[in-house]
C-alpha cells in the first residue's frame, strides 16, 4: 500500500456493505466525482445491497442489457436468488460467461460465480473460479468456502494472503473472525474481540451483534448472547440469523423458542436451521423404523 494519502471514497460504502448495514450503504451511495471504475464498483455494491435486502426484482429491472459485465453478474445473482425453481438457466448463462475469455476473468463475475456455486454446494466448482483471488472479496469468499468445506487449514492460508495485503481491512478482520469461530478454542475470544472492535468503530449492525452473540454462545455465555440477539432483533425483526441463533440460545437457556422457530419458518422457509430441523425429523422417523 503506497504511502500517498489518497482518500478512499468508497471506504464507507464498502464497510457498510461488509458489515451488513445495507440500507446505510444504499443511502450513502450518492458520492460525487467518482472515477468510472469506482462508479462501477459503487453500483455493484449498491445492487448487491439490494439483493442482500431481498429486493431482487428491483435489481433485475434496473440493470439492463447495456450495463457492464460486473453489473450483469450482479443481475445474474439476483436472478438466481429470486427464482429458486429456475436455477438451471441462470447457472447455464453464468457458465457461458465464465467460459468467455473476454469477461471470464472479471472479479465480480467470478465472485458471483463463487456465491452461486456455494449455494449449489458445489464447492469445487466455486473454488475453480474464486481461488485465484484478486480482490479482498474473493479472498474472503475463499475463506468462507474453505470453512464450509471444513478445511480450516486452507482457510488459514487464504487469510494469511489477505493479511499480507491489508491486515486491517474490514474483510480481513471479518474473515479472521469467521475462521476463529470455525476453529474454536481460545480463538473464539479473538473473534469476539474483532467483533467488539467493529462495534466500537462502526455503528452497530445486526451482523456485528450476531457475530458477538455467536462468540458468546461458543464461550457458553448464553445469557449475554441472548441479550445481544434481542438487541439485533430490535434492529431487524426478520433477520433469519438472529432468529435462528435466538432459537439455539433459547434451547440452551431452557426457554421456549417455538415462536422464533415459527417466525423463521414463515419468513425464511429455506433457512439452514429450518432445513436441518425437518431433515432431522425425517431421519428420526427413519431411525425409529430401523431400531424397532
Amino acid at each position, binding site marked *: 500500500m503506497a504511502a500517498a494519502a489518497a482518500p478512499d471514497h468508497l471506504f464507507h460504502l464498502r464497510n457498510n456493505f461488509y458489515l451488513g448495514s445495507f440500507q446505510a450503504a444504499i443511502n450513502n451511495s450518492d458520492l460525487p466525482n467518482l472515477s468510472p471504475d469506482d462508479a462501477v464498483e459503487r453500483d455493484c455494491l449498491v445492487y448487491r445491497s439490494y439483493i442482500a435486502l431481498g429486493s431482487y426484482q428491483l435489481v433485475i429491472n434496473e440493470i439492463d442489457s447495456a450495463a457492464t459485465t460486473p453489473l450483469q453478474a450482479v443481475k445474474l445473482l439476483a436472478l438466481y436468488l429470486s427464482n429458486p425453481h429456475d436455477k438451471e438457466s441462470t447457472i447455464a448463462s453464468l457458465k457461458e460467461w465464465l467460459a468467455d475469455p473476454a469477461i471470464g476473468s472479471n472479479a465480480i463475475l467470478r465472485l458471483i460465480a463463487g*456465491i452461486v456455486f456455494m449455494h449449489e454446494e458445489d464447492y469445487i466448482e466455486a473454488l475453480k473460479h474464486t481461488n485465484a483471488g484478486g*480482490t479482498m472479496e474473493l479472498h474472503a469468499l475463499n475463506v468462507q468456502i474453505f470453512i464450509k468445506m471444513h478445511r480450516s487449514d486452507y482457510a488459514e492460508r487464504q487469510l494469511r494472503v489477505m493479511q499480507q495485503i491489508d491486515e486491517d481491512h474490514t474483510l480481513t478482520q471479518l474473515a479472521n473472525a469467521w475462521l476463529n469461530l470455525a476453529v474454536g478454542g481460545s480463538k473464539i475470544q479473538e473473534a469476539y474481540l474483532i467483533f467488539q472492535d467493529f462495534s466500537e468503530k462502526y455503528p452497530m449492525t445486526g451482523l456485528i451483534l450476531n457475530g458477538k452473540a455467536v462468540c458468546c454462545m461458543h464461550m457458553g455465555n448464553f445469557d449475554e448472547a441472548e441479550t445481544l440477539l434481542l438487541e439485533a432483533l430490535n434492529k431487524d425483526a426478520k433477520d433469519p440469523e438472529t432468529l435462528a441463533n435466538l432459537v439455539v440460545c433459547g434451547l440452551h437457556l*431452557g426457554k421456549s423458542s417455538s415462536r422464533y422457530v415459527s417466525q423463521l419458518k414463515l419468513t425464511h422457509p429455506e433457512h439452514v436451521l429450518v432445513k436441518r430441523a425437518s431433515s432431522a425429523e425425517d431421519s428420526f422417523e427413519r431411525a425409529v423404523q430401523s431400531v424397532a
Partner: protein
Amino acid sequence: MLTKFETKSNRVKGLSFHTKRPWILASLHSGVIQLWDYRMGTLIDRFDEHDGPVRGVHFHMSQPLFVSGGDDYKIKVWNYKLHRCLFTLLGHLDYIRTVQFHHEHPWIVSASDDQTIRIWNWQSRTCISVLTGHNHYVMCASFHPKEDLVVSASLDQTVRVWDVSSLKKKGASPADDILRLSQMNTDLFGGVDAVVKYVLEGHDRGVNWAAFHPTLPLIVSGADDRQVKLWRMNDTKAWEVDTLRGHMNNVSCVMFHAKQDIIVSNSEDKSIRVWDATKRTGLQTFRREHDRFWILAAHPEINLLAAGHDSGMIVFKLERERPAFAVSGDSLFYAKDRFLRYYDFSTQKETQIVPIRRAGSTTLNQCPRTLSYSPTENAVLICSDVDGGTYELYQIPKDSIGRSDLQEAKRGPGSSAIFVARNRFAVLDKSNNQVLIKNLKNEVVRKSGLPVPTDAIFYAGTGNLLCRSDDRVVVFDLQQRLVLGDLQAPFVKYVVWSSDMESVALLSKHSIIITSKKLVHQCTFHETIRVKSGAWDENGVFIYTTPNHIKYCLPNGDSGIIRTLDVPIYLTKVSGNKIFCLDRDGKNKTLVIDATEYIFKLSLLRKRYDHVMSMIRNSQLCGEAVIAYLQQKGFPEVALHFVKDEKTRFNLAIESGNIQIAVASAKEIDDKDHWYRLGVEALRQGNAGIVEYAYQRTKNFERLSFLYLINGNLEKLSKMLKIAEVKNDVMGQFHNALYLGDIQERVKILENAGHLPLAYVTASVHGLHDVAERLAAELGDDVPSFPEGKEPSLMPPAPIICGGDWPLLRVMKGIFEGGFDSTGRGAVDEEEEGADGDWGEDLDMVDSDGLQNGDVTAILEDGEVAEDNEEGGWDLEDLELPPEVETPRVNARSSVFVAPTPGMPVSQIWTQRSSLAADHAAAGNFDTAKRLLSRQLGIRNFTPLKSMFLDLHTGSHSYLRAFSSAPVVSLAVERGWSESASPNVRGPPALVFNFSQLDEKLKAGYKATTDGKFTEALRLFLNILHTIPLIVVESRREVDEVKELIIIAKEYVLGLQMELKRRELKDNPVRQQELAAYFTHCNLQMPHLRLALRNAMTICFKAKNLATAANFARRLLETNPNENHSKAARQVLQASERNMTDASQLNYDFRNPFVTCGATYVPIYRGQKDVSCPYCTTRFVPTQEGQLCTICDLAVIGADASGLLCSPSQIR
C-alpha cells in the same frame, strides 16, 4: 536543557533563588540587582544602590532579606518587602566577589579581592571573623550546608577549607559580640577563631569557584586552568580525587546537583557542562553563541538551575520531571525510576509491574516521555528520546503483576508511538512523514503517509490519529486516509480525551483548546503561565493545572480557579470531588477539591435548576462573584435570591422581569428614577395597574393621561382633566380634553387661554355653530378662513374595552422563589418546565426548524465541497491489486490449482469420538444415538424422546452470516469452552439439556405434588425420566447424582400414577385403599409422605379398616406432622385402639417389606420373583417381561442393557 525563563540585561555576575517563591535575584555588572519572577516572567523589583558591578547576591532562607556585595567594597543587606537597603557592612578593602547567608546563624560570609574572607553577624551588624591566608583575590567563599565549614577559592591556585566552629561559641551570647568588638579589631589579620583546615593544591591557575557536596564530604572546584577538580576530605586530610577536563576556557563556576549524581559547571568558553559525578565523564554540553558564562545557582528545593552570562541569565532544568503515564478506565500506568507501575484508582493501590530499560546515563533526558496502553492486549508502549526517539513495547504478564523478571522489550526508532487499535500501534516516521502501523510482534503491517508535516502523533479514537504540526492539528483516519478534522492551534503538547471520546482538550504551552472529536472548536482558554496537565471530570468539565493552580473550564468557555498549589502536579483522573494526580517524584496523590462552584455553574449552564436550587440551599455559595456571574450569564432571577441590598435587588428584579419584587423594592427605595424604571418594565409586560401606580407615584400626569387614553379609561381621563384644571395646567387640560374628545371643553380651554381664532376654528369645524358665531362675533374681522375639502377628524375612537391589564407577557417567575418558599422541589420543576413550554415553544419550533434545514444544507454543501477538494488534491488510488497482475493469475489458476477435498464436519468428529447418546443426537446421528440408548438402557420406545433429540440437534450449531448473499455458515457449538482451549481441537457438542435444569424440574415437580397438581407433577417427573438418557455430566459424582435422580423420579411417577388411578376408581373402595397404601411406600419427600399417609389413613379409617388406619396414623406421627395433623392422627389411633380390626381384607401387609409392581400396582414382597426395567429400575411382576415399561415409557421390561452412560468420565 529545558529553559524555563530567560532575561536580557547587562552581564549577570550573581544569582540567588528564593526558597519558597518563584523568584530569582540577579546582580549585574552595571550595579543593578534585579528581582525576577521566573514563573510569570516579570521583573518585580530592582535595587540600584551599589556603585559599580555587584558580583555577589544571596537570599536569606526564611527572612525577607537578601545580601549583596559589590565592587564598591560594600556589603548591603536589603529587605525586599520594604524595597530598601537596611544597612551596609563596611570592612573589605577591595572588590567583594561573593556573599552568602548562613542557613542557621545570623552570619554572612563574604569573599573579597583584599585576600580575606570575612564572616559578619548581620544582627549585630559586625564582622565577627576575618579569615586570612589566601595570598591573592578570594574568588568565592561559602558555608557548608550542615557543618561548620567554609570553602573558599582563590586566584592563588588553592582551595581552602576553613573550620569556623569556634565562631559558634563566640557568638553564643550576642552581648559578647559587642564586648569583644575592640578585641576583634586587634585580632584583624591574626584572628585565631577560624582556622584553615585544609589547603587544596592542584590547580595550575587561579581557582574561580569551589563548592561543597550537599551530603558527601566532597568538594568541587573550577579554575582558570580550564579544569574542574573533585576533592574528597575526611577528618584529618583532604585530597584530589579526579579532574574533569573539557572546558576550553576559564571555568567560572561549578557545583554538585542536589538530587542527581552530577556536577554542573560553566565557563567563559560559553558553555555549560554536565558531568557524571561517579564516572567523571562529560554528559552534556550546552553552548551559547556569544555569551561567556559567569555564575551558576541552584534552587534549594526544586529541580531548577540558573546561569548568568554576558547578556542576561537563564533559568533551566536539566531533565523533565513529568512522569509518563496513561489512564485506562480505573487504572493508571506510569513509569517511575526503572519500573512500569500500575495504580488502581478505586483501591488506591500501586504495584510495580515490569522493569523497563533504562538508558545508561550517557546523556540526560532519556526517561520515558509518553506512555500508551492497550487494555485488551495488556500492552504498554513507552516512548523516550533515547537515540533521537525510541519506543519500547512491553507486554504485561496477565497473572503476575508484581513479578519482576526483566523481559526483552520490542523496540524501534520513532519519536511518537501510540496504540491506534487493540493490537495495532502507530509509529511516527518523521523523516518520511509517514506512520508505520505495527502489530504486537513489532512487524510493520501498513504504512500510511500523513496529510500534514507531523512532528508528533496522539491517540484520537480507534483507527484515528491526531497529528501535530507546528501550528495546527489534524485528525486523520488511517484506514480511509481521510482528514476528519483540522484546527489551527498553537504547538500542542498534550492531548486529553474525555471518557466518552466526544471531546478533546488540546494543551499548549499557554492555552487550552477544547474541541469536539472532529476538532470542531468549542472554546479556548489562555493562561499567562504554563499549562501543566488536565483531566475531564464525569460531568464534562475540564480540570487543569498550572504550576500554581488547579482550574476548571466549563463547556461554555467559563473558567475559574479551584485551588492553589504549592508544587506542580500532573492530573491523572478526576472523580467527583477527588483529584488523582502524580507529583514530580512519581508519587500518586489524591486531593479533595471543592467542586461546588463549577458544578453550580455547570448546572446553570445545563438548565438543571433543581440542582442549582439544592446547591443554593445547601451550600455557602453567596458572594459578589456569584451574583456578578449570575447577572452576567443572564440568570438575574437566580441572583435575586442572594441579594439583600434593595437597589441591587430592584435592578435584578427589573432585569429578570419580576414585577412583584420590583414593586416591593421600589416601595422601599421610593425615588422617582426607580418608579420610572418600574413603570417602563411594567409597560413592557403590559401590567397596566403597576404602570398606573408607578406613574401616580412619580406624579407623571402626562404619561398617566396617555396611559388612560390607551386603556380607554375615560373616567380616569376626565379626572385627569379636573386635576389639570386644578393645577391650572392649560396644556394638560387641552390634552386631556383632546383625548376625551370633549370639543366643548376644548373650545372652552382655548377660549380661556385667549386663543380665540383656534377656539373659533375648533367650534365651527366640529359644528358647534352657536359657539362659533359667538366667537366670530368676538373676533370681528379676524375670523380665520378654512381650507377647502377637509373633514374634521380630531376625535379619538371610542374604546372597545376599558381598563384592566393587557395580556401579560409571561415572565419566568418563581422557579427559585417557589423553591425557597419550601414547596416541593418536584412541583417547582414542573412549573419551570411549564413556563418554558408555554410560550417559548412555538418560537423555538420555528427556530429549530429553520435551523435544521439550514444545517442540513450547510452540511451537504460542506460535504460536497470537501469531496471536491479531495478529488482535486489527491489522486484516487485503488485499493485492489492492479488488473495487470490479475490476468496472468487467472490463467494460472486452471492449471495449478487443485481444490482440496472437503474436510470432516465437526458433527462427524463428535460421533466418532463419543459413545454418549446425547452427543450423537446433537450431531444429528439419530440412528447411532438410538442404538446406543437401546444397548445401554434397553430403550425401545423413542417417541417420547423425539423433541429432545430434535432440540439437541438444533442447539448444537450457531449461525453466522458471513459473506453477503453467500450461504450462511453454521458453526458447531462445543461444550465446556475455556479460554485456554487450543483451537482446532474439537470438544464435544454443547447440549441444550443439563443437570441443573433437571434439578429445577425436580423442584417444580415437588411443588406440584405438594399443591396436589398430580397430573402436572407426573408430567414433570416423566419429563425428567425422559431427559436423563440424553444428559451428560462431567464427574463420577454427578453420575451418581443422575442415577439417584432416576430413582427419585421413578418413585414419584409410580406413586403419582397410582394416586391418579385411585381417583379414577370410584366404586372399588378396597382397591382404593390398597393404592393409597402402596403410595405411602413409595420413596417420597417427607411432606409428600405425610400427605400420602394422611390420605391413606383417612381412606382406611372411613372404610373402617381401623387396624390399617392405625398403622398409617402411627407412621404419620413418626414424621412429626404439625399440630392439626398430629391431632387427627391421635384421634384415629384412639378410635382404632378400641377396635383393632379391619372391615375389609386388603392386599397389603405393612409388616412385610415389598415393592409395588409398576404396571399392575400389586405388592411384590421380598422373596417373590420380579423383573425390572433396565432404565428406571422399576420392578414388575414376571408376567410383564417384554412389555414397555409403564413408568418411564422408554425401555422394555427385562431387556438386556449395559447401564446408564452419561459422562465421559465413565468411559475413561
